[in-house]
């Protein structure tokens, strides 16, 4: 039997593997200090770092770093003109980043593609409310039947689903005007913006594990559901959703769109341009109904005229049925490139961006 006193290393090891109150208190103290340090040091300035701008500019149109792009936009200053894309996934997929960058980089534009899947006009309004004062450039707001058919309850959920993050003075004011309760705030940036920030953490982790994220468009490019049963399923579901919500919700959504225009005018020098997002002609003729779609476009067109903004609707001229993946997303990079080229040309002709 060995009666020699254990060495320091052995003692240390014993401490590591045995249960004791000291380790429990150490764990609690660690958690407390870590949380306190994080809560008091992480604020908007901390998030608005060069690292985060780097991520935003290197992941310009994929699904993971939209939070980065949002924060990059909020902290972008007003030195350079901006080209901001807001809308749903149809707008995200149809906006070709390479084409936009190649066309506008020489004019010093910063490009922010902030469209995301099923983005509501309420979320678009929040993004506009955080634009730096006196920003210049153009904001494209994708509109389409599905964007204005989101009902009041679903919109209400959009405010709370972001935690207290979806809040800014002008946004909260607009919410009260429409009888929405602004998000609750704790005053701690880290807690209020947890959902934005955690998504960033998740994005970085995924990036590390799976490599650089793909552009969002790659979810669709290279395949098509045309002639497939899945197309019918999706089209029926989407058609039901739009048909159910449209008449009851269109007025409220257009009011939010009005707020976007008003806010862009009062806080910035940016122009808002409404863009009818691409929609599969087959979906229109077989599911949505041509009459319905024409009435929708007329409504948005009247709205645009009333609010003194431009409404661009060129998708139908440039995109045939066989270019779509499903009811609204394009299936080919070349189609997105062609559409974006045509869109930029139209914007240039109408004087929203420089001559290309």
């Amino acid at each position, binding site marked *: 039997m060995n009666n020699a006193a254990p060495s320091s290393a052995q003692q*240390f090891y*014993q401490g590591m593997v045995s249960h004791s109150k000291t380790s429990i*208190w150490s*764990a609690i*103290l660690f958690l407390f200090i870590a949380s306190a340090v994080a809560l008091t040091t992480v604020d908007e300035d901390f998030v608005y770092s060069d690292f985060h701008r780097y991520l935003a500019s290197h992941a310009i149109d994929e699904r993971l770093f939209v939070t980065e792009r949002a924060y990059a936009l909020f902290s972008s200053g007003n030195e350079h003109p901006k080209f901001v894309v807001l809308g749903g996934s149809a707008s995200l997929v149809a906006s070709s980043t390479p084409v936009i960058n190649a066309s506008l980089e020489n004019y010093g534009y910063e490009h922010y593609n902030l469209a995301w899947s099923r983005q509501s006009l309420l979320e678009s309004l929040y993004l506009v409310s955080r634009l730096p004062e006196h920003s210049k450039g153009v904001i494209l707001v994708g509109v389409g039947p599905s964007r204005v058919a989101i009902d009041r309850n679903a919109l209400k959920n959009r405010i709370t689903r972001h935690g207290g993050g979806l809040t800014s003075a002008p946004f909260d004011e607009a919410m009260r005007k429409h009888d929405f309760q602004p998000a609750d705030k704790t005053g701690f940036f880290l807690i209020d913006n947890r959902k934005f920030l955690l998504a960033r953490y998740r994005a970085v982790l995924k990036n590390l594990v799976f490599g650089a994220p793909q552009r*969002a468009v790659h979810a669709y490019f290279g395949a098509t559901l045309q002639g497939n049963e899945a197309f019918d399923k999706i089209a029926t579901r989407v058609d039901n959703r739009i048909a159910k919500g449209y008449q009851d919700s269109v007025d409220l959504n257009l009011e939010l769109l009005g707020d976007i225009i008003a806010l862009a005018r009062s806080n910035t020098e940016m122009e808002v341009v409404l863009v009818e997002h691409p929609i599969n002609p087959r979906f229109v003729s077989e599911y949505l109904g041509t009459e319905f779609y024409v009435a929708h476009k007329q409504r948005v067109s009247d709205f645009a005229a009333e609010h003194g903004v431009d409404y661009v609707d060129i998708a139908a001229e440039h995109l045939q049925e066989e270019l779509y993946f499903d009811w609204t997303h394009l299936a080919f990079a070349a189609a997105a490139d062609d559409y974006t080229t045509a869109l930029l040309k139209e914007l240039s002709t109408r004087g929203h961006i420089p001559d290309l």
Partner: protein
Amino acid sequence: MKIARKSGEVLRGVIIGALLLLVMVELAMLDGGATVFRYQGF
């Protein structure tokens, strides 16, 4: 000698605390992941 043992106990606590913190962040991420900023699987 006692200091060595205490150090071991404290380190154990810090490691447990760090793991708990990770678990808490992961749990919170399940919630955060439910937002529009989730990895959108379309």
